């Protein structure tokens, strides 16, 4: 290491403190999920359990509510949303960034305008639309309103603009058609952007409480946050350890997915996708 060690240490300490502050709630959550109830209520700052009750808490949580089903629902909904968002946003952004057609600037204006509208503003008409078509209380109701992401279009648009035209021209001269250019050149190059977008999309829809609360009634379709809500209102009271265990189970897929994606994400950036 060529860096002076003192600077290294300073940097390490700063990062550790920042990370601890951000992670503290999560650490306590995990800690509580391992403690028996009386120990939680006894107070004390240590996140580490004196008496290990993790097994009981996690087993209890899984028993009292179909948590794994909620997690599966979350996976289905988030995967569906992300899939359709990519299918719609990537070609749309590509066309706006790289093709010349009349009305392009106007369309881009619409996209930017769309960024300003929160879901709460459009929720009522969308709900009525879903209700009229008999789609409420289905997976479709959870997925359909989010399949077109203006944020996604905007993000990919910005990214496509950094891909030089000459690169695509070179591919065309090398004999690639539009589909081949997409598959061989564009998609590999936008992997970092797609990963970043995937993280944003999955996190926000996994954690979304607002929309599922509106369109879902049957417990079978509960998404993870609805599951926690159900868990809390039914069990309530003193089973904090189980509640925390349930929360842990429900957030775990997200944490794991993020850690996996983060690796790719950083890889994509540090390889300098568009350098050279």
């Amino acid at each position, binding site marked *: 290491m060529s860096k002076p060690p003192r600077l290294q240490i300073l940097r390490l300490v700063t990062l550790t403190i920042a990370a601890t502050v951000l992670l503290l709630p999560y650490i306590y959550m995990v800690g509580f999920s391992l403690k028996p109830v009386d120990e939680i209520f006894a107070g004390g700052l240590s996140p580490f359990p004196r008496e290990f009750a993790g097994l009981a808490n996690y087993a209890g949580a899984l028993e009292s509510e179909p948590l794994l089903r909620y997690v599966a629902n979350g996976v289905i909904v988030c995967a569906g949303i992300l899939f359709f968002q990519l299918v719609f946003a990537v070609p749309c952004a590509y066309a706006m960034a790289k093709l010349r057609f009349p009305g392009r600037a106007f369309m881009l204006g619409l996209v930017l305008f769309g960024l300003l509208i929160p879901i709460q503003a459009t929720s009522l008409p969308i709900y009525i639309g879903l209700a009229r078509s008999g789609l409420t209380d289905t997976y479709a109701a959870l997925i359909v309103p989010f399949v077109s992401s203006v944020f996604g279009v905007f993000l990919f648009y910005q990214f496509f603009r950094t891909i030089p035209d000459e690169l695509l*021209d070179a591919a065309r001269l090398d004999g690639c058609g539009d589909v081949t250019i997409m598959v061989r050149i564009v998609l590999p190059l936008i992997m970092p952007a797609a990963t970043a977008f995937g993280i944003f999309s999955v996190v926000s829809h996994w954690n979304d409480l607002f929309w599922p609360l509106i369109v879902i009634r049957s417990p079978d379709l509960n998404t993870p946050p609805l599951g926690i809500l159900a868990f809390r209102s039914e069990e309530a009271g003193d089973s904090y350890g189980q509640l925390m265990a349930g929360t842990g189970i429900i957030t775990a897929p997200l944490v794991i997915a993020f850690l996996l994606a983060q690796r790719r994400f950083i890889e994509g950036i540090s390889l300098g996708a568009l350098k050279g």
Partner: protein
Amino acid sequence: MAHIEIRNLEKSFGDTPVLRGIDLTIERGEFIAVLGPSGCGKSTLLRIVAGLEAHDRGHILMDGRVVDGLAPKTRDVAVVFQSYALYPHMTVAQNLALPLVMRDLTRAERLPFVRYLSGRVRRTRADIRDGVARAASLVKIEGLLDRKPAQLSGGQRQRVALARALIRKPSLFLLDEPLSNLDATLRASTRAEIVQLQRTLGTTAIYVTHDQTEAMTMADRIAIMIEGRIVQVGTAREIYHRPTDVRAALFIGTPKMNLFDGTADNGAIRLAATGAVVVQATGARNGPVQIGIRPEHMVLVPEDPGDGIPVATTHREFLGSEALVHVAVGDGTQGTPAVARLDPDTADTMTVGRTAYARFRPGALHLFDGEGKCLDPDRHRPLSRIPSAFGQEDGASDAQPVPRIVGG
């Protein structure tokens, strides 16, 4: 190897005309440079020839066949872009292989697992690997095949781009300022290498540049392009010695050709600044003209030989084998600036701030009319003879050391 014919090509972006009627014929195996200032439409011309851009009017013929509107891949051309345009996520080997993969394998055969099913695909893939190795050795990048473009130096990237262009042996090379991102030394050596490669492969090449040295040292012929028009096509020598347009004359040669305002008056060409008659040109119509002379044809002497044009010496530059003396012609130091290329000893006899005397070698004068077209009635004369239309014929040749001044 293709024969290219460009006929009256026009192109506008919106209301801005970029190409205003380009006519250019390129022989089989010829290396032609398109030389022009930034923004004159060189890249646009290249992109149209490659099929990447559509033109508004005119035709492009390759080997006598009109290729207007044909897709780039069917034209069998390869382009080296200024930015190299290497695929950043692929290794050098993959970059080089892509053109061959696309040409030699069908869509189904390109699928990754097919090579395990079909012996033919396996053989084609092996051929492609050989092709990559051969192309890499042509430009000496054998050791870099596993790197990604980001891990290469500018010069190495440039070689990869060259290799990718030549790997499928196209019938036409298009090179768009391929050396402009390299440092001066590398540029000089790469110049020679590109020419050598082109000679070995025998491929017709169009080389776009704004650097006159590149154009003059590399190309068989140069097409000078200015504001969307080709103003002159010829060898470097032809354009240097017999420019047909004042803009071509100014674009080739360092320092630039000296240019003075003048008038034609019943065949006498007068320098506007001093009123001196510098030459007789019977063909010239009365009116304003421009009088051009290359710096090496402008002779300065410190003492008035009797028929010299007095000039103010403003600056002297010693360049080793030669020296440049900057002068102002007419009106003291405020006159028309001009440069004379002298041998250093002669230049030392000139003092900055003092008056010197200039003599123009009549046979080396270039006359241009008000539109900038060359006034020379017979520009295909041999270089060594001075035509009678430009001063009295006296057998003086360009090699004669002390020129005569006509009139005064």
